[in-house]
């Protein structure tokens, strides 16, 4: 074990890297354990059109590269590996990457969320052989073929629209009778002649032996089942927070999202802060993640100052920003 870091940041999406930029500029020399999924979900996003400051849009991976460079410029240190275990029961807090131990006075958790799978047998069986959660990665392999996208949120819309560029046709299978996606994305999808929507439908199975040949769906209103011919199924049904490391330690809701005190990034453990999608059940945007990352760094900085000043209780969630 080495020296005790002032701030340890776990995760490297927009929340973690924004926290790193702020903490580094505050002279806290943060250590970011960025994970093998470094960059977070934006690494599998093509065009980001809603992040302010990029009027012509920006590619997700390029944007995360810029975030990282900005954090690095002010003295952030990085470890490209996954945290395997944490001990937040005493200070300094400790986190392990395998056998390597890292200690810190304050911890910022920004581990984000991962794509959910349907959990059906055929999905697992055909993974990498036509079942995918990344249209930008794998759409290429299904040129001029029909494909299915499962889901009704912005991610599903984005995947479906992307796939229309190369695939013969795209069928969206959605379990409700309307999309959860933003109006602009839903409109683009509904106006696209290459996209068909199966409303009120759920996936029952994936057809095919060596490669995907179709997707079996059931209409939840009529109960009818049929098979949509398809060479691939892209799953985009939402995300789950990456919080298994913190089970039993940090307060979380039924779905595993970390609970933070209102209007702050304080968790139930003083000195441990949470930001980004790991604690966001409502907005889940790159810009809101970045915003909460900034909050976490400021909360951590002030908390550390209060500790140094010998104060025993933190400033509290209701303290005003200035």
């Amino acid at each position: 074990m080495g020296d005790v870091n002032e701030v340890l940041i776990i995760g490297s999406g927009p929340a973690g890297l924004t926290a790193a930029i702020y903490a580094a500029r505050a002279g806290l020399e943060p250590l970011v354990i960025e994970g093998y999924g470094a960059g977070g979900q934006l690494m599998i996003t093509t065009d980001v059109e809603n992040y302010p400051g990029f009027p012509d849009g920006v590619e997700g991976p390029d944007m995360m590269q810029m975030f990282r460079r900005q954090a690095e410029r002010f003295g952030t240190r990085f470890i490209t590996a996954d945290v395997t275990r944490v001990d937040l029961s005493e200070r300094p807090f400790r986190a392990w990457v395998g056998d390597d131990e890292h200690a810190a006075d304050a911890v910022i958790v920004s581990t984000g969320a991962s794509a959910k799978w349907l959990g059906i047998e055929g999905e697992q069986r055909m993974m990498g052989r036509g079942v995918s959660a990344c249209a930008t990665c794998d759409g290429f392999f299904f040129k001029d073929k029909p494909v299915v996208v499962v889901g009704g949120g912005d991610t599903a819309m984005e995947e479906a629209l992307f796939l229309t560029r190369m695939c013969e046709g795209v069928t969206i299978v959605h379990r409700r009778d309307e999309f959860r996606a933003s109006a602009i994305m839903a409109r683009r999808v509904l106006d696209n002649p290459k996209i068909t929507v199966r409303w009120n439908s759920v996936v029952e199975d994936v057809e095919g032996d060596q490669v995907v040949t179709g997707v079996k769906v059931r209409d939840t209103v009529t109960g009818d089942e049929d098979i949509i011919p398809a060479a691939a199924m892209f799953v985009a049904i939402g995300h789950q927070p990456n919080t298994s490391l913190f089970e039993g330690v940090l307060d979380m809701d039924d779905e595993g999202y970390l609970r933070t005190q209102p209007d702050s990034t304080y968790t139930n453990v003083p000195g441990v802060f949470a930001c980004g999608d790991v604690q966001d059940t409502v907005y889940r945007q790159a810009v809101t993640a970045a915003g909460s990352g900034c909050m976490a760094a400021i909360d951590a900085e002030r908390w550390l100052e209060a500790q140094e000043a010998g104060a025993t209780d933190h400033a509290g969630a209701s303290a005003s920003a200035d």
Partner: protein
Amino acid sequence: MADVIEITSDTFQGLVLESEKPVIVDFWAPWCGPCRMIAPVIDEIARDREDIVVGKLNVDEAPNIAQQYGIQGIPFIGLFQGGQLVKNAVGAMPRAGIEQALGLS
């Protein structure tokens, strides 16, 4: 201490199929985010394993080879031995996951 080598359609036969040592091939593409995510892991494996040749092949430039092996998802990390694809790992995963899938751990 070896670097990851570039493999193309023209060099695939010689560098991979006719290699004396086992070869790990990282099938990737520039537009694939998860491929970029695992690139440092592939570099690490290349550095640490002198008994294995590690290379990367851009599927955009060599679609015929990806097709030949029925690859429909990337990153696709294949282990070739004696001219045959013997094991593979699909999708971004930590180093331990890749090594396990390839039977290297």
